[in-house]
């Protein structure tokens, strides 16, 4: 066992650290029209240095960086206080699916514009009656000349208020639940699309409802086989729950901020919660290093999803308990942390998955 970084990773780390130190600047919330465009500019700037998708092949705008280097990038990114990624849903949810199930044509067409944030993607999974029970979704895609017509309603669609395109599952066949679903991409500005932004607890539209009324999707925007959408979506769902969407760097950075906050506002009764936050972030970081050699299975990703989402809440609640109700610099992160145990499959569903699929308890 060995935790040391090789020379090329150290060089890469130094480059990233130095570039971020001179370029990171505070941006407005990405859940406002103006802030969204600020974030798009920031991501273009990252892309111009080939820092927006470091682990992708160079052909699509990346650097062919190793997973370790990607983790190092993420640690540096979050430690520098750099802004949240408006392209996150595309990069961490859609792109892995395209790498695994897309065609060469799709990858060539979709990935470079995603890397440059020319096209920002929203996810469109949930429906009003299909939340935890995603397989009960009802929106349909009906065959038409040269493609499909989408009908129905999606909700809790992150970024959809201002994004360009979206990806989701639709019923194309007669099967029930997991059967007869197809993974489709669509344009949020296409005729027939109505986007209704939904204000979150902070008052800003971090997600939206998307109403679809005969929205045309050309055949080349079907990902994977028609009718095979559940498998296509789930094969990379671990990416949302596990490694990629919430890289350890986010939590090691937040835990370090919490330790600094504690030093300025020491309260011995809260000491253990501060230390446990740091230990938890470190545990997740090391766990991720361990997963570099053997990537996590879907159920194993459920373990980390529960862990990081509860860690994030604990970090931010401890900060609020130290500061009281006036908590500048922590409020937005705190509100966001509260959504962690809910999105990407509630922690209740994840615990079922862990018990049934990792421990083999009966369904």
């Amino acid at each position: 066992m060995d935790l040391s970084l090789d020379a090329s990773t150290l060089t890469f780390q130094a480059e990233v650290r130095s570039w971020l130190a001179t370029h990171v600047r505070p941006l407005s919330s990405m859940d406002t029209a103006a802030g969204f465009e600020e974030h798009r500019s920031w991501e273009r700037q990252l892309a111009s240095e080939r820092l927006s998708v470091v682990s992708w092949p160079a052909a699509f705008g990346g650097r062919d960086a190793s997973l370790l280097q990607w983790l190092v990038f993420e640690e540096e990114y979050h430690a520098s206080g750099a802004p949240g990624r408006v392209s996150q849903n595309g990069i961490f949810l859609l792109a892995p699916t395209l790498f695994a199930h897309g065609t060469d044509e799709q990858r060539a067409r979709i990935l470079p514009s995603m890397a440059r944030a020319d096209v920002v993607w929203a996810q469109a999974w949930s429906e009003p009656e299909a939340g935890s029970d995603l397989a009960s979704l009802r929106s349909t895609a009906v065959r038409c000349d040269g493609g499909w017509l989408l009908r129905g309603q999606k909700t809790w669609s992150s970024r959809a208020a201002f994004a360009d395109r979206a990806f989701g599952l639709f019923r194309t066949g007669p099967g029930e639940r997991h059967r007869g679903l197809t993974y489709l991409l669509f344009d949020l500005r296409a005729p027939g699309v109505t986007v209704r932004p939904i204000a979150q607890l902070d008052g800003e539209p971090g997600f939206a409802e998307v109403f679809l009324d005969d929205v045309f999707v050309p055949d080349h925007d079907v990902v994977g086989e028609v009718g095979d959408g559940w498998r296509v979506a789930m094969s990379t769902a671990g990416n949302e729950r596990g490694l990629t969407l919430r890289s350890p760097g986010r939590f090691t950075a937040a835990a370090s901020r919490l330790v600094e906050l504690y030093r300025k506002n020491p309260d011995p009764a809260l000491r253990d919660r501060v230390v446990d936050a740091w230990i938890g972030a470190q545990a997740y970081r090391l766990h991720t290093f361990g997963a570099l050699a053997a990537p996590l299975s879907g159920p194993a990703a459920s373990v980390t999803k529960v862990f990081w989402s509860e860690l994030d809440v604990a970090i931010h609640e401890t900060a609020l308990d130290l500061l009281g109700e006036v908590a500048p610099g922590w409020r937005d992160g705190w509100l966001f942390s509260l959504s962690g145990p809910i999105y990407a499959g509630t922690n209740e569903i994840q615990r079922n998955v862990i018990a049934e699929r990792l421990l083999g308890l009966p369904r």
Partner: protein
Amino acid sequence: MMFTLSSEQTDFAAVLHDFLRAGKTDLASLGVDEVTDPVDLVVVFEEVGHHAVAGPLIESLAVVPALMGGVAAGAAAGATHSVAFPPLVPHAVEADRYFLIDGDTLHEATPTAELESVDPSRRLVDLSPGPIVATDVPAARAFDLGVLTCSAQLLGLGRAMLELTTTHAKTRAQFGKPIGQFQAVKHHLANVLIGLELARPLVFGAAVTMNSRDVSAAKVATSDAAWQAARIALQVHGAIGYTAEHELGRFLLQTRALRTAWGSPSMHRARVLEAL
């Protein structure tokens, strides 16, 4: 010993509940501004919390009257008051007229800067002391009344969130059945009920004794029970509870703010230990 509410008190709670549920706000029309008995104040503030009423009610109805005693506040009828007790209560909730406590001296005060609370419905201000209004005021008791009514409000907030969530769990279906049929949801809600049910007698007990130890114990227990209610309410509601369109958010944010208002749980635990 008779450690239950009188029928007059339960009737009064029911009247307040109906009044607030109907969207009315002029509590003075019910005589609430004349309530001074701590147990009666708890009855009032549990309903204030139950409906997530915003504004400087703790200050206007419980704390400032205790500080002013018989002395007329000199404010117009219906005007709201607010008060800070630095360092424990460093800021004041926005109101028509401000006071500031320094030891046992009551000052007029003027707002200097606005501050952002975790609950956007609570507008906070920093205060700068002005002329002395009174000396030798019962500051300690007034502070404890603030803590007590804040505890009662947290209890009401917690109860409201439990009610909201229980209703949601009975009606929202996933996987072909109401989510309230899942044992995980049942146990979440049972835990909320247990927390609130055992915090409640501490609040009324503190109102009876009005000693600092008991008042602090009530604040600790209600802060934890109500915040647990909020977290579980959000978890059981899922994404819908995370929207500004759903009423849960109002309760949740107010609970989080009141959890550390009128002294943090940590400060109150220290006060309990000192008194043991």
